């Protein structure tokens, strides 16, 4: 089973990486590669763009109710991601070790924010979702959160065994799977999420920084401050 899951992990990772490379190659076939952004990026545009990304500032100005949920969701996801790095790093850097308490909080905040976003969008704002992909992604996230919480608080997982397995994954040494069904479930959902990671995670930071660059250019073009 360890071998199957390990292969599954490598396959999912390849699917994710190759998908992006294939997309880039397809674009290069359509149109010649140009640097991005197309003009020289100023430091101020980069920094303001970075703040926009970290604070989701535009969403805050447009929809503060949804912003609360989205910001908590993205921040929790980042904290949980950093917290999970302790399973693939040995020795664990101090900064990652220090994420343990924040990650515990984030583990609760993440599903709570997902629930909040769902309620706000579907019931309060009545925004129609268009594809089953959206629901699949949100559902998988929720299942992943709940299984993680169950592993932590109800079905005590064999953490040493899990770390042995995950370290084996990143060092290309296949080891046997810890005998915890809930971990197997949690890990499979993670693989599904890895394969279906939305492209905006990588493209959106570029558009947000580029938007700041455009604003700077327009300001230069205008006639007064």
């Amino acid at each position, binding site marked *: 089973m360890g071998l199957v899951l390990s292969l599954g992990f490598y396959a999912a990772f390849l699917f994710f990486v190759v998908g992006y490379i294939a997309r880039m190659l397809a674009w290069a076939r359509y149109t010649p590669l140009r640097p991005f952004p197309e003009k020289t990026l100023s430091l101020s545009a980069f920094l303001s763009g970075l703040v926009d990304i970290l604070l989701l500032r535009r969403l805050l100005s447009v929809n503060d109710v949804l912003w609360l949920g*989205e910001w908590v969701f993205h921040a929790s996801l980042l904290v949980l991601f950093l917290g999970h790095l302790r399973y693939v790093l040995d020795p664990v850097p101090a900064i990652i070790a220090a994420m343990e308490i924040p990650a515990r909080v984030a583990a609760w905040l993440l599903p709570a924010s997902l629930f909040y976003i769902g309620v706000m969008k579907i019931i309060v704002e009545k925004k129609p979702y268009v594809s089953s992909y959206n629901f699949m992604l949100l559902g998988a996230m929720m299942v992943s959160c709940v299984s993680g919480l169950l592993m932590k608080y109800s079905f005590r997982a064999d953490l040493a065994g899990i770390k042995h397995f995950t370290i084996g994954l990143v060092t290309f040494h296949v080891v046997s799977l810890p005998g915890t069904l809930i971990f197997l479930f949690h890990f499979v959902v993670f693989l599904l999420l890895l394969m279906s990671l939305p*492209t905006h995670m990588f493209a959106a930071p570029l*558009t947000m920084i580029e938007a700041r660059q455009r604003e700077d250019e327009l300001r230069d073009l*205008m006639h007064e401050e």
Partner: protein
Amino acid sequence: MAKDKAVPTDKIAAGLTWRQLVEIEACARCGECLVWCPAYAQDPRESICSRGKLGYLKRIVKSGLGGEEHKEFLEGLYECSACGQCHIVCPLRINTHELWEQARAALVKAGIPQPEALIKHLAAIREFNNSYGKPQTERGLWAGKAWQAGLLKEPVRLWKEHPAPVLYFAGCTASFDSAMQAVAVQSARLLQEAGTDFSILGPDEPCCASKLRRMGDPGFADEARKRVDLFREQGIRTIVVSCAGCFKGLHSDYADILPGTIEVLHLTEYLDRLIREGRLNLRGRVPMQVTYHDPCHLGRHNQIYLEPRRILSAIQGLSLIEMRRHGPFSSCCGMGGGLKLAKPDIQKKMSAARICQAEETGAEAIVTPCQTCLMGLTMGTEAISSGLKVYHINEMLVRSICPEAGREHIEKAFADAEGR
């Protein structure tokens, strides 16, 4: 769904830039755009809002669309005034309106033309150098008629006779549309009141050709270069434009092609400057409660929000009440992007919705600094039989400075001159 082999997806994708290909991937499908989109508000179909269009574009680039979906995509692409509201509310700041314009041009290059009405309109611009399909000799006639009717302090001179420091660019609508010529006359009168030395190109004034870009004509860049060359040959340094669409064209679209060539100011920027310098004396009271409509091309696209409001607040007796949606969130009246030609019914509903928002404020009039918005909003009042008055910002200034050049006087004088 089977892919339509007749849809040249490769060619469409090839018409987009790398930045735009990345932008297509950036959509998080959050749906914020459909909450704000004024066209979607009137026709709530996914293909109309940005999220839907981005989804279709993503699939076009990736694998192509089925025939029926392709039709829906085209419909959505042209049932859009390219107002830029979706760009403003997009949490990821996708530059949507430029993407739609580029996608339209990419489709045309790939052999998929615009709707028939847009093609005819663009052909008129190419053939007559104005969007009204009238002889260019008629373009500057408003100036002579206004002088003869005593509406101006002095005759407006042609650039070739008097190359003044400032060129006033009236645009096609204020030059040819009899219902909108008051805008040109009042602009000229206000410049005269401030003692500005200006002239006009008259029959040599070209169409700004910005509609070519808005409607996806791939020939826009060449046409823009011709116009910039004309301005350069004439030695023009400063252009004051009274039309928001022409302003976007001359100021922003041309800047992409030939940056920093000529200073282009919108009339509101220039008048605001004149008022603050004390050159325009707002002597009379205008006891009115008005609300202000931000034209998309002036506000969202060029960040001119403050100047028109400063002008209005400088007028004694006039009070400004903002609409629920104003500034960057101002609802589009539907007159941009060729929407009125492609889907006149949707445009009418959009302008009517805007009038309803204006009525909510309790103001007696809605004021705008764009002659195209003026037309659109007037249609909105007619559509819902609203008693709300629609005025160009010039009218408010004229009432304070020189009421004899009010819109009613101009329209009457012009009608008398033509024996109407």
